[in-house]
């Protein structure tokens, strides 16, 4: 589903990459015209890299192809000569009168994509991000004007249910079920677009379960979205038709999802339970999920059909985790600032083994720091994942943080690997940069446990955050203390 290319910067490779880009986009569900726009955008960037970034010198270009149900993102990275796009803006009059076409490539890319970002990461290279959204119809555009969604409901007396795995053919039924149950208030916009659901299931981005009545009408849906970076998945997208609630359908679907996840050899499942009520946290707890982190300002987008701007709700979530493997080992050493809390978090999981993995020795770092950035354009949040700490950690992290200043973000997260004693220095430095704890994110990257820190750009009202488990309460207290201290320090400064 996702793809990664590493290529030598040569004119000869451009055609091969644009061919691949076009075919990959078509395979992921783009129409031919949208795929051609992405292929052209990639061609423009690569052509400039070959001509200007490396000139006659040998150099390499890395390209990542990423899919979500709402968009495709292509990330191009290179470490050629420095470049400032602001000095290369296209001027139509200059082009027509003087024949000066400087900036034509970037102008082309901007017009062919829905988002174009250039991130200058200094010594760590340059990054071009091309995003194109799927153009699929909303469920209300697919049904007749006077369509009565209530008619899709079976009588309340219907009690015989059939629980089966979802297929891409269930997409329209799922969108209708969501609309019938929530109108426009469901936070996951993708679920109002049957073709987005269809491609996501077809591309194995997610799998799930659907409940139908004896007459075949859909009354429940629950799905797992697979992580692209680890063998875990998020239980999400849950709905039961109002007339069929309190009949154990959620339980049936959750047990089915856990079973399906085990059969796919996933290492674990996690759920993001909202903190404005306790219901989801209680449900997760009932099935053995344990709280490991509290993530603040994870925003949900509400679909408001016919309106340009969508409303962004500030919400917080408790991350609840359910391990599905017995191979899970806690790190040999926990970060000093959070050793007690993390120890309690790990102690919740009974089946966990003692670590046989040795911690990386201090001072054995390679020079290079390996980190990458993922941007969620819908929720306006970004995640920096540190794969390895090198001796350049502070410099690389500083450049990465600086490059994110060009984004409009509501929150920024950073995941730190727990297997290196350098984590203590990293935490101290990140706190100075305005980060506070979020918690443990188990198995989140290449089946390894990470510590997540978060930087929040909006005011947080902790009195509105409700927690169910004891550990979730302790996480909230720790995070609130760090938040208050940060606010105090910032106001003093």
């Amino acid at each position, binding site marked *: 589903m996702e793809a990664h290319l590493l290529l030598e910067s040569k004119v000869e490779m451009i055609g091969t990459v644009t061919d691949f880009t076009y075919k990959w986009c078509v395979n992921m569900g783009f129409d*031919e015209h949208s795929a051609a726009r992405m292929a052209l955008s990639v061609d423009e960037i690569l052509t400039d890299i070959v001509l200007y970034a490396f000139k006659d010198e040998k150099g390499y270009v890395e390209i990542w192809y990423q899919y979500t149900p709402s968009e495709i993102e292509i990330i191009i990275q290179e470490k050629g000569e420095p470049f400032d796009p602001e000095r290369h803006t296209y001027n139509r009059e200059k082009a027509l009168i003087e024949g000066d076409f400087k900036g*034509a490539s970037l102008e*082309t890319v901007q017009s062919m994509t829905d988002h174009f970002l250039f991130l200058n990461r200094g010594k760590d290279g340059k990054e071009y991000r091309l995003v194109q959204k799927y153009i699929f119809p909303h469920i209300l555009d697919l049904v007749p004007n006077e369509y009565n969604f209530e008619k899709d409901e079976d009588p309340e007396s219907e009690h015989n249910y059939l629980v089966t795995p979802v297929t891409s053919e269930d997409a329209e039924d799922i969108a209708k079920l969501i609309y019938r149950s929530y109108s426009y208030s469901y936070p996951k916009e993708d679920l109002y677009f049957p073709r987005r659901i269809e491609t996501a299931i077809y591309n194995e981005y997610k799998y799930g379960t659907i409940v139908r009545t004896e007459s075949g009408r859909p009354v429940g849906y629950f799905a797992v979205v697979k992580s692209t970076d680890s063998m875990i998945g998020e239980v999400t997208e849950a709905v039961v038709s109002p007339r069929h609630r309190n009949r154990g359908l959620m339980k049936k679907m959750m047990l089915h999802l856990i079973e399906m996840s085990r059969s796919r050899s996933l290492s674990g499942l996690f759920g993001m339970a909202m903190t404005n009520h306790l219901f989801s946290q209680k449900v997760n707890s009932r099935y053995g999920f344990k709280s490991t982190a509290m993530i603040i300002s994870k925003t949900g987008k509400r679909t408001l059909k016919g309106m340009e701007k969508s409303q962004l709700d500030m919400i917080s979530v408790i991350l609840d985790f359910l391990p599905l493997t017995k191979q899970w080992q806690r790190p040999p050493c926990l970060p000093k600032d959070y050793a007690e809390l993390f120890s309690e978090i790990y102690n919740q999981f009974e089946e966990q083994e003692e670590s046989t993995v040795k911690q990386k020795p201090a001072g054995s770092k390679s020079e290079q720091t390996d980190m990458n950035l993922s941007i969620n354009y819908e929720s306006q949040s970004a995640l920096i994942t540190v794969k390895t700490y090198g001796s350049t950690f502070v410099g690389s992290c500083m450049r990465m943080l600086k490059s994110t200043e060009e984004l409009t973000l509501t929150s920024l997260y950073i995941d730190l690997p727990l297997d290196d004693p350098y984590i203590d220095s990293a935490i101290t430095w990140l706190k100075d940069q305005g980060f506070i704890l979020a918690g443990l994110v188990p198995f989140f990257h290449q089946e390894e446990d990470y510590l997540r820190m978060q930087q929040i750009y909006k005011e947080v009202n902790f009195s509105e955050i409700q927690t169910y488990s004891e550990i979730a309460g302790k996480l909230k207290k720790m995070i609130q203390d760090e938040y208050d201290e940060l606010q105090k320090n910032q106001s003093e400064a």
Partner: protein
Amino acid sequence: MNYKKTSQKLEIELTGDFNLKAVRKISDLLGDRSELFINLKKARFVNSKAIIFLHKLMQGKPRVVVRLKNPPKIFFELLQTLGLHRIWELDEIVEP
């Protein structure tokens, strides 16, 4: 790419996209000929370097007469983006 040459005219049938590699090849083949015909039936796109190349041929001294057949839809969008739709005589350049 497939091509035919006469002393005055170069006829090209592109087998892929109109990109930098194609520009370089056409530029070499064209020499000092005064007419260029390109069939773009198999091109999914024409990139900005190719459009600028054609523009400079048509505006240059001596001018080269350019004729295009079957350009993809994206070609017209890009002309608009670059503002060249205002001065290109598309009725003459693009063959029906």
